[in-house]
């Protein structure tokens, strides 16, 4: 298969980044917007073409979608270990190409309207292209080190974009926090990679993931503290993924990342970068499943489920709409991890895998839409907070409708996209672990509740105190909203399991009507409750919050994890360790050296008295020395 067009997909945004970056001063802002959009339009078309080509023209060989790899050696560590650069084409990478392209294109178009007039316009589009390039590289990676390289690049793009409003101290702090937390997770990732490299002798995905290959078959040959070394590696790699995907307890950076411009939040922190962790586990799924009988996979499932619940509970209480959406993303990512964790491998048993990828796909659509709608609202009234909003449906009809569609999608109301993917996740959980299913179901209800809470809070209820009459956003912003809304409606009808499955063979799914009904019912309860509480202005919500007392306050403060982390880093790491290190170095280590110098000077001061300038002292020394030598000489002579 001719893969040249796939290689172009990441290279075009890279070229855009370089052009916009190098000729920063000479390009007019409007032009850079067009260049960015154009570049992405080409990449998106190529992505769709590749998908069509891969799934339909080439199709299955012997019932399985083939993995196609083109790579070249980038650096040699030893004769056998090396880092390659290349592209790996298989069902999930092609799917991700589409997701990244579509969302990035929508965000590019939207940003032309949202960021209009901003002084750093060209810089913004340059960074967006850098991010898109890095994300493409990540999904097309052929080996662990290549994915790590693009992983870091994605992290840097996120840092640059979160810190876009760099004169705001909170934005700078948020960017730093995001980078450092994910760096900490990447430490685990790197150590996991090193372990895998050492014990299996390769970094290559094809070789590692081969169920009949030595990496998987010989997992029990090395053991460390009761578990196979490879299991440790997989857990460490999951830690890396957990950092990027904001799993508990590495989630603290995501809410703060909302300091970035809203289209950035839509692209990076909703649809693409944060799913990198899920994608990583999916990419290594055969290893996760087969090694140590899926030990690492259980950890993935429980962490995912816990995060989903944790984030949903917090989301109910937040008053900044972007933060609600951030926690919502965290919760949905938890769903994706949960789905992977409960998945099997062969055919229908790989339902969880398929469901996870399906949810990734649909979630990208409606979550990006939610963020872009939120951006539209924020753009209109210049505030993020619910208390400043209300009754906007009269002024912003398109935003209203599209938000509603997205909210229905995420709540899991059929026939929108979210229903199909979330349902598959719940079915997979039900078949594997009932406890996780209950959690998943409860979270579904919470999801519907919090999303409609903000929907009603923004578009219904008492009108906020608007200084100027809010108006609908320009066409550059509403067009992507409409397109994404359309996708959120029809996206669920794609027969996903035909294309995406753990063993790449595709399978048929059948609707589990009872479970689907229960899930929809949970969603409807959530919507109903929030209708009661929030559609019209009333005291119910506050009374309920007061009844819950401490529980509510701690959820509102995100269970004080930010404070905890701040305490550990500022008080312990910075003040105790870093300051002591610096002081120890200055006082003791340097002090020793300077002390040696001072001692030398002191000794010299003391013995300089020997040069007294008195002739008689010199004569005395002379005589004394002569006598001593004479005595010694006589002594030797007589013996």
């Amino acid at each position: 298969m001719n893969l040249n067009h796939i290689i172009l997909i990441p290279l075009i945004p890279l070229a855009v980044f370089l052009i916009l970056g190098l000729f920063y001063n000479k390009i007019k802002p409007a032009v850079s917007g067009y260049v960015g959009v154009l570049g992405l339009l080409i990449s998106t078309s190529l992505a769709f073409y590749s998908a069509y080509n891969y799934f339909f023209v080439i199709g299955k060989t012997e019932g399985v979608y083939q993995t196609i790899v083109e790579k070249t050696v980038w650096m040699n560590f030893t004769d056998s270990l090396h880092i390659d650069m290349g592209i790996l084409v298989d069902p999930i990478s092609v799917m991700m190409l589409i997701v990244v392209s579509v969302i990035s294109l929508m965000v590019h178009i939207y940003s032309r309207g949202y960021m209009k007039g901003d002084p750093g316009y060209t810089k913004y589009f340059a960074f967006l292209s850098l991010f898109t390039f890095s994300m493409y590289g990540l999904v097309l990676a052929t080996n662990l080190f290549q994915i790590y390289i693009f992983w870091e690049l994605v992290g840097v793009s996120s840092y640059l974009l979160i810190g876009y409003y760099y004169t705001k101290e909170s934005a700078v702090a948020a960017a730093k926090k995001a980078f450092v937390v994910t760096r900490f997770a990447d430490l685990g990732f790197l150590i996991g990679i090193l372990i895998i490299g050492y014990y299996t002798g390769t970094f290559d995905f094809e070789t590692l993931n081969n169920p009949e290959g030595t990496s998987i078959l010989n997992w029990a040959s090395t053991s460390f503290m009761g578990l196979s070394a490879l299991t440790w590696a997989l857990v460490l790699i999951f830690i890396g993924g957990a950092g990027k995907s904001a799993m508990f307890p590495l989630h603290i950076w995501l809410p703060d990342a909302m300091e970035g411009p809203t289209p950035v939040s839509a692209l990076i922190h909703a649809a693409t970068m944060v799913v990198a962790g899920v994608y990583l586990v999916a990419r290594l799924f055969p290893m996760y499943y087969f090694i140590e009988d899926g030990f690492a996979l259980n950890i993935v499932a429980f962490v995912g489920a816990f995060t989903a619940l944790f984030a949903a509970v917090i989301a109910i209480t937040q008053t900044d709409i972007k933060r609600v959406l951030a926690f919502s993303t965290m919760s949905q990512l938890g769903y994706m991890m949960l789905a992977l964790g409960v998945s099997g491998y062969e055919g229908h048993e790989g339902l969880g895998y398929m469901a996870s990828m399906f949810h990734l796909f649909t979630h990208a659509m409606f979550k990006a839409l939610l963020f872009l709608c939120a951006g539209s609202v924020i753009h209109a009234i210049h505030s993020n907070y619910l208390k400043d909003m209300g009754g906007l449906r009269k002024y912003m009809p398109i935003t209203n409708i599209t938000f509603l569609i997205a909210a229905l999608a995420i709540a899991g109301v059929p026939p929108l996209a979210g229903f199909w993917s979330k349902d598959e996740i719940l079915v997979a959980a039900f078949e594997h672990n009932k406890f996780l299913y209950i959690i998943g179901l409860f979270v579904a209800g919470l999801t519907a509740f919090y999303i409609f809470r903000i929907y009603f809070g923004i578009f219904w209820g008492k009108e906020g105190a608007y200084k100027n009459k809010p108006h609908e956003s320009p066409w550059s912003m509403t067009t992507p909203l409409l397109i994404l809304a359309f996708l959120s409606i029809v996206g669920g009808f794609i027969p996903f399991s035909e294309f995406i499955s753990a063993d790449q063979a595709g399978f048929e799914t059948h609707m589990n009507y009872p479970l689907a009904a229960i899930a929809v019912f949970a969603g409807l309860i959530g919507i109903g409750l929030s209708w009661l509480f929030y559609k019209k202005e009333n005291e119910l919500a506050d009374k309920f919050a007061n009844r819950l007392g401490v529980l509510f306050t701690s959820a509102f403060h995100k269970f004080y994890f930010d404070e905890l982390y701040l305490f550990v880093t500022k008080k312990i790491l910075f003040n105790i360790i870093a300051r002591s290190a610096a002081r120890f170095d200055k006082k003791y280590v340097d002090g020793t050296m300077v002390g040696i110098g001072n001692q030398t000077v002191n000794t010299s001061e003391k013995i300089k008295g020997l040069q007294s300038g008195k002739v008689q002292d010199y004569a005395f020394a002379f005589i004394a020395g002569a006598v001593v030598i004479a005595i010694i000489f006589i002594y030797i002579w007589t013996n």
Partner: protein
Amino acid sequence: MIPGISIYEILTVTSILFFIGVYGFITRTNLISILISVELMLNASVVNFVIINKYLFPEVLQGVYFSIFIIAVAAAETALAVSIIINLYRQISSVEVKDIETMKY
């Protein structure tokens, strides 16, 4: 060879002379006195040379010859020392040894 007196007695005398000279050199405060002590030391060593020559090596005369050298050197050195002292006196108007301590740390 002086009959009746052994070499040890004479060497004792010269040693006492020598160490009187040393004592004088180290403790006197007047430069001239120091010079006199130096003379004492030198002359004690001259006597030593002659006595050892006479008592231990009576056939040869090297010791006596060398003592002439020492006397000549002592005279020259005294002349040199006195000229230095005179120049010094012209600078600092004193012949006390405690006034010439400037060449120190």
